[in-house]
């Protein structure tokens, strides 16, 4: 089984457009939307929800007001400022470390399960699709990503897993790229797109994962596209596709379909080429 992750560094470059089309083109597959903070793939993939599971990713402290003697030790030792002057836990700040629980002289603090979010599993044609819904401000988004990937493995033995990643380079992205066979980096011809691509490629190098670059909307600024290609060449990274700006992309999102289904779309044509290339490289 092979795993391909689609990431970008910068947000809004077209990860979901690419991965939804790849998802359509792949045969025996698992699809994971690992952009757990703002998941969009479920809007595009025709899927039928079969299972929803609560995910507990951590702990949160709770102070028993009757037992609390307001000695102040917990407040003093908490490094996250999570205990306010009324000796109540500020949920958004508590990281669930358990320092307060361990230092309280009166056993007034208990550690409770903290729901990180939900994991949803769906049927799609040719496989399974999983995504997460993170609770607002939840710690442990990376753990939800790992859980999404694990749950897919349990339910369907696929030839290929495609992961739609999130922007950035932090814990969520790291959990998404861990153990992947290759990464498609979707960028756009802007200075931000270029800088962010470089950062995410460094991260992939750090994890020893091969990167393939797609320049989306390459004709918005041809000079920047050339700069991106030059930067890739210097780092021996292949640019496998240059997708033109195409109104069909927005039309597709509006109609809840992958753009690949629009025969006249120039973007679809380029995505197909990119897919065939990746398929060949991954030997699937």
């Amino acid at each position, binding site marked *: 089984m092979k795993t391909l992750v689609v990431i970008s*560094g*910068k*947000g*809004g*470059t077209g990860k*979901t457009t690419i991965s939804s089309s790849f998802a359509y083109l792949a045969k025996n597959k698992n699809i994971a939307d690992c952009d*757990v*903070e*703002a998941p*969009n793939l479920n*809007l595009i993939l025709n899927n039928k929800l079969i299972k929803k599971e609560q995910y507990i990713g*951590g*702990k949160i402290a709770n102070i028993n007001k009757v037992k609390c003697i307001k000695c102040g030790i917990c407040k003093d*030792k908490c*490094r*996250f400022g999570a205990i306010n002057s009324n000796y109540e836990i500020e949920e*958004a700040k508590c*990281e*669930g*470390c*358990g*320092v307060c629980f*361990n*230092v309280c002289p009166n056993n007034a603090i208990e*550690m409770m399960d903290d729901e990180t979010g939900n994991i949803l599993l769906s049927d799609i044609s040719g496989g399974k699709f999983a995504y997460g819904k*993170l609770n*607002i*401000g*939840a*710690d442990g*988004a*990376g753990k939800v990503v790992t859980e999404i990937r694990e749950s897919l493995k349990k339910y369907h033995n696929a030839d290929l897993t495609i992961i739609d990643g*999130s*922007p*950035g*380079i*932090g*814990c*969520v*992205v*790291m959990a998404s790229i861990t153990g992947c066979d290759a990464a498609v980096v979707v960028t*756009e*011809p*802007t*200075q*931000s*797109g270029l*800088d*962010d691509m470089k*950062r995410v490629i*460094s*991260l992939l190098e*750090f994890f020893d994962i091969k990167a393939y670059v797609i320049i989306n909307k390459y004709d*918005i*600024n041809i000079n*920047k596209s050339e700069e991106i290609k030059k930067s890739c060449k210097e780092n021996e990274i292949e640019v496998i596709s240059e997708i033109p700006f195409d109104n069909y992309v*927005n039309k597709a*999102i*509006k109609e*809840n379909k992958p753009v690949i289904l629009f025969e006249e779309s120039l973007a679809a044509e380029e995505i197909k080429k990119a897919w065939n290339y990746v398929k060949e490289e991954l030997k699937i």
Partner: protein
Amino acid sequence: MNISVLSGKGGTGKTTISTNLAVRLTTKGYKTQYLDFDVEEPNGFIFLKPQIKNREDVAVKVPQIDEDLCNGCGLCAKKCNFNAISVVKGKVVLFEKLCHSCGLCSIICPQKAVTETDRVIGKIEKGFNGKLITYRGILNIGEPMGVPIIEKLQEQTKSDYINIIDSPPGSSCNVVHSIEGSDYSILVTEPTKFGLHDLKIAVKVVEKFNIPYGVVINKSQQDNIIEDFCNKNNIKIIAKIPFDRKIAHKYSKGDLLINDEKIASIFDSIISEVVEVD
């Protein structure tokens, strides 16, 4: 006054709004700071091109084990809620990147074998664009947690300044730590189903913390999908920036938009809506 700019979805125009707003405020004579809290991919300086005056490392505390004192009892590993410590054959193994720097292991070690040491995870840069003070946080490649840098950036906000906080995308801990203490949030979206879906997430975030907010529609076209949602839910739309390939081209080069009179007036209306209220 702290104004945070967020979006849920990435790439809707947070940095475009934040940088242009900060420069426009400065031009109008407001004491302003721009702070890039998107520490995983900070892009604001591309547009502001500040002269960097100061760089400072951001470090977190991680445990350090005195092997002469440690008897391998394993209590630290057992108590660590982040699985950052394990004890193999009586020897402590640390997974520093999982550590949240809570200090529990050093508190509970019966042998007093745990002290703490600094580990650098990124840096903060300070610079100037004319009178505009600019900060950005940068998370080192391979580091999972940006929150400690975000907290350090929070310390740089000044109460007698307008602080424009360019927030990260998403809805998790990074975002919540960025908008803490905001007097107003600007939610930037685009008129697509993705934009709307993620705007709803951003609305949940600011409502959870009772922060007053308004919406900016970027790349606005004929589609009224955002307007319909906002009207239905009594959410104020404070500005619309039209979709225009010329704007996209300017952005792509790393240029600000407010040299254009028409765009500047859009930012003036944001300022009168958000800042110039009594």
